[in-house]
């Protein structure tokens, strides 16, 4: 009725008989909706249109089956070159969302599926928010994971809508909440059931002029000056326990912003634009955006095959086998776990029960999960399995005998994998009728918290099997990294010399505490010696032997002495550190007097040198994949964007610093003015 739909590429626009203006977002050329600059430009025109044509109400929905809005378009962030342009872009969005908020008619947003970041910020600028109660519906602010915080007015609006205590927690944790939890928080106003319709709920809301309820008393109280002071201190403490300010400035900046302007939404929004503008170009944000795109790349690897597993059979109920089985069960699969006798399977079942209780909580779901995990001493479930994973002790003959026995019993099309980290894939595959079938699936310990799985292939491996294995990783929520079969694959190959270097430094007389503190100051999640204890010194020794480098006999002997006396690290209660309640007992005094930068430079150098060597050996196909592997496999300081990226960046910086010094016209870096 007068609205020319053809004007808009990304929005379906309709004015109905009740004089309601319907805006259905359907971003052209994309599977999912995100707020790209084009989408926002069109939205600005739609606001103009609503201002002049004065409809009875405006309803915003998504036409995509994949959800409402995933956020701003992160890919566009890298196109900004100066803080000023970021701020200007943000202010433009502030302008249109403010005008949306000020429209005299009822504005309703109706959400099914993801409503994250910019999508939630858009929703918060509407009068009334409706969500469909299905598992896919999720609300949240993921921005801090990208080194920024909500910048489309979301920090100010969420604080004003649900109070600083709840809003700040959401933004700082980046956690996602479902429809009912969002209603309880006050983020949304109405939840409809899965058999109801968003369209009709939105129409109902507009015809009865619904408005979001004003914030609760406790929400308003949490924004008062004294409350902000107390809460901000608590938030800083909580944040400090997780990330360092020098590495991740965004959460600290957000806390300071709220502490200062939490009761003045307009002012907070203005300052939000400045803060986010500056954070957007900070090295941490650049690095984290890179991590995000690397993650997307790894995830995409898992989407090249339609393979979907229903049943998994794991042979070997040790730590790795048992935990792989438990993780697959947790992800909804049916798993049979085989070992020589039931008594070897029972400890794995107990660990699994503990994991299910921790992750699922609901006893009914725990029971269902336990029913999906079956001990299978005779291995009769092999024939039903879509994925068979061998995780027995590292012995070539035993593994070969097992594969010989397994091959004829496999279901057609089933993936056959080994979790070995020591034996070359080719040697295992040699006993098979179809050696091209075997792949390696190298999980990391602890399986439940390590997001990476190395998929090992040799020259003869069938590419289709690799794709299926990657799809399987995607199914169990793990990032697949395809690596060439070679000693240590990628992650252990790099970690080996890195830990050996840490040991050499230690043998030179530097305390373990100082070495680990140096690595952590660089941004590693855990220092190399604590890591050695956590992995187990026996495992370290085995990896060292696999890598077979001629270097470091003294270091090898050093670990061997520990292993020989039963000091294996965390699992035995003592290794390089003493362990109590699963925590390494460190003496902080031992750090003083040591130059941590010198230590970390040495460690990081060895680490990155080995990365370069691995890349040269073609272990992975390109530098981005290598960086991705090291970030998700070892937790290499994510804000630094990956080891190779970091080195390149450093060299680049050194060159430009040198150029600047000779140029002698150094100006103030815009990022530093305050």
């Amino acid at each position, binding site marked *: 009725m007068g609205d020319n739909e053809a004007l808009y590429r990304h929005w379906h626009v309709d004015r109905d008989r009740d004089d309601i203006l319907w805006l259905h977002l359907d971003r052209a050329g994309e599977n999912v909706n995100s707020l790209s600059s084009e989408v926002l430009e069109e939205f600005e025109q739609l606001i103009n249109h609503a201002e002049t044509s004065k409809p009875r109400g405006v309803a915003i929905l998504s036409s995509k089956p994949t959800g409402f809005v995933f956020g701003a378009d992160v890919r566009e962030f890298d196109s900004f070159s100066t803080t000023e342009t970021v701020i200007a872009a943000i202010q433009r969005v502030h302008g249109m969302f403010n005008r949306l908020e000020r429209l005299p008619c009822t504005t309703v947003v109706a959400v099914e599926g993801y409503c994250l970041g910019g999508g939630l910020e858009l929703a918060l600028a509407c009068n009334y928010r409706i969500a469909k109660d299905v598992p896919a519906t999720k609300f949240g602010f993921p921005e801090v994971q990208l080194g920024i915080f909500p910048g489309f007015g979301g920090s100010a609006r969420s604080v004003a809508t649900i109070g600083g205590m709840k809003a700040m927690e959401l933004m700082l944790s980046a956690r996602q909440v479902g429809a009912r939890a969002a209603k309880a928080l006050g983020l949304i106003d109405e939840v409809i059931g*899965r*058999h109801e319709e968003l369209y009709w709920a939105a129409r109902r809301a507009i015809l009865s002029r619904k408005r979001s309820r004003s914030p609760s008393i406790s929400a308003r109280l949490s924004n008062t000056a004294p409350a902000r002071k107390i809460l901000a201190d608590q938030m800083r403490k909580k944040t400090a326990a997780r990330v360092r300010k020098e590495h991740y400035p965004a959460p600290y900046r957000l806390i300071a912003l709220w502490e200062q302007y939490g009761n003045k939404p307009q002012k907070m929004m203005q300052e939000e634009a400045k803060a986010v503008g500056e954070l957007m170009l900070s090295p941490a944000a650049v690095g984290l955006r890179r991590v995000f795109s690397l993650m997307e790349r790894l995830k995409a690897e898992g989407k090249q095959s339609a393979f979907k597993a*229903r049943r998994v059979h794991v042979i070997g109920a040790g730590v790795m086998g048992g935990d792989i089985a438990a993780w697959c069960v947790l992800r*909804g699969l*049916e798993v049979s776990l085989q070992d020589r006798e039931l008594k070897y399977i029972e400890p794995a079942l107990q660990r699994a029960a503990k994991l299910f209780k921790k992750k699922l909580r609901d006893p*009914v*779901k725990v*029971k*269902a*999960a336990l*029913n*999906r995990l079956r001990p299978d001493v005779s291995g*009769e479930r092999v024939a*039903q399995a879509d994925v068979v994973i061998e995780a027995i002790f590292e012995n070539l003959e035993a593994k070969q005998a097992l594969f010989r026995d397994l091959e004829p019993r496999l279901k057609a099309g089933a993936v056959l994998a080994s979790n070995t980290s020591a034996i070359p894939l080719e040697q295992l595959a040699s006993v098979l009728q179809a050696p091209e079938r075997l792949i390696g699936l190298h999980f990391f310990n602890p399986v439940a918290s390590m997001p990476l799985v190395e998929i090992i292939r040799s020259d003869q491996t069938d590419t289709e099997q690799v794709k299926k294995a990657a799809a399987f990783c995607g199914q169990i929520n793990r990032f697949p990294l395809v690596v060439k079969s070679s000693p240590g694959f990628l992650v252990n190959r790099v970690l080996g010399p890195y830990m050996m270097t840490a040991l050499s430094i230690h043998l030179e007389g530097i305390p373990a505490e100082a070495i680990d503190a140096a690595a952590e100051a660089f941004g590693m999640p855990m220092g190399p010696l604590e890591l050695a204890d956590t992995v187990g010194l026996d495992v370290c020794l085995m990896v060292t032997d696999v890598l077979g480098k001629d270097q470091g006999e003294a270091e090898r002997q050093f670990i061997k002495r520990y292993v020989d006396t039963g000091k294996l690290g965390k699992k035995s209660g003592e290794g390089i550190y003493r362990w109590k309640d699963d925590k390494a007992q460190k003496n902080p005094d031992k750090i003083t007097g040591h130059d941590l930068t010198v230590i970390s430079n040495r460690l990081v150098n060895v680490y990155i040198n080995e990365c370069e060597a691995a890349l040269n050996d073609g272990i992975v196909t390109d530098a981005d994949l290598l960086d991705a592997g090291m970030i998700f496999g070892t937790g290499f300081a994510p804000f630094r964007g990956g080891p190779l990226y970091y080195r390149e960046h450093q060299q680049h910086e050194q060159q430009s610093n040198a150029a600047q010094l000779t140029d002698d016209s150094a100006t103030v870096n815009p990022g530093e003015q305050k």
Partner: protein
Amino acid sequence: MSNQQLRRVAIVGGVRIPFCRSNTAYAELTNLDMLADTLQMLVDKFGLAGRKIDEVVAGAVTTHAKDWNLAREALLSTTLSPATPGITLQIACGTSLEAALMSAAKIASGQIDCAIAAGSDTTSDAPVVFQRKFARRLIRQGQARSLYSRLAHFKGFSLSELTPQVPAAGEPRTRLSMGQHCELMARDWGISREAQDHLAMASHMNAVAAFDSGFFDDLVLPYHGVVRDNNLRADSSLEKLASLKPAFGSGAAGASAAATLTAGNSTPLTDGASAVLLVSEEYAHAHQLPVQAFLTQGRTAAVDFVQGEGLLMAPAIAVAEMLQRAGLALQDFDFYELHEAFAAQILCTLKAWEDEDYCRNRLDLPNALGSIDRSKLNVHGSSLAFGHPFAATGTRILGSLAKMLEQKGSGRGLISVCTAGGMGVTAILER
């Protein structure tokens, strides 16, 4: 309608969610949820998204008044074309089998080309309502105009009226539970505890073997983390079954008799849903759908249980009547899918068919129907193992039997389901 010849009715296939004991894994779900999700599984299995099906006929036994349009509401929550009509139907435990028979008749006569029969039941979401006396007060109060007359409707109110009414799985006319009725039948026909336990044991063993062999892989799909029926016991044993106490007391069965029905040889209250796709042969060819079997006969019968007939004996009669019409003998089958409401129900039915007197006097037959080859009975398990979500059992059996006939290549299978109110629904599948 033209006076064309009757058309063959093809069963394309069925699907169901794993059945779960009441108040376990599906406690948070409603009939509408389970039915919609099961229909969606069937849609996905046979690529029916966006397709208009001529009718979806489905029902639930334990149901809320608000679910008066259950079948239609459920299909609107799937990717089926919204132009698909939904018919909500109910005949107790025979619901989804009856739904299939009614649609099959329409397909055979050429009224429609395709239909989905389905059923769902949950006793975890049972409708709890006020007693009628209190409900009447509320209604009259709502109609009243003055404050005085509003209050007047609460005159004589007693707190006991607030006691909610929970639907009972019992017979309204006799005030006996199903189990108590079946206990009476067991006594009439002299069915021993051991025989019942043996049947229960066989049901579990057959069902476990069928699951382990992969028979149910495309029939029972994972749902809410559950991969197989949670009533199933792989570790069942006759000793364990023998150790169970009678579940329905000896009082109802008469003081002198020892009760024989236990939780082990009776079906538990169960949540679940199932669905089957039925089409004309022409439709199957036109849409490249597989034909697992043909639904060739159906019959529904009832007994006068108020005057003392066994409440769950109606399948014995329905089968006899159906066989006569089909010109078949009881022994002309490769599979017998007799729903095990209680082990005793099956054993009474089998015994009745073997009984000259019963067959002559009650079934009007010249001779006894005879006995069946027990190795052909419920070969992949039945309700004692899977559980029995009332309305879902009929299409559960249809889906399984159709697949069994497809695997066998050719043959004939008999289905019977007993229901509350002294009724029975039966059918024949052939291939």
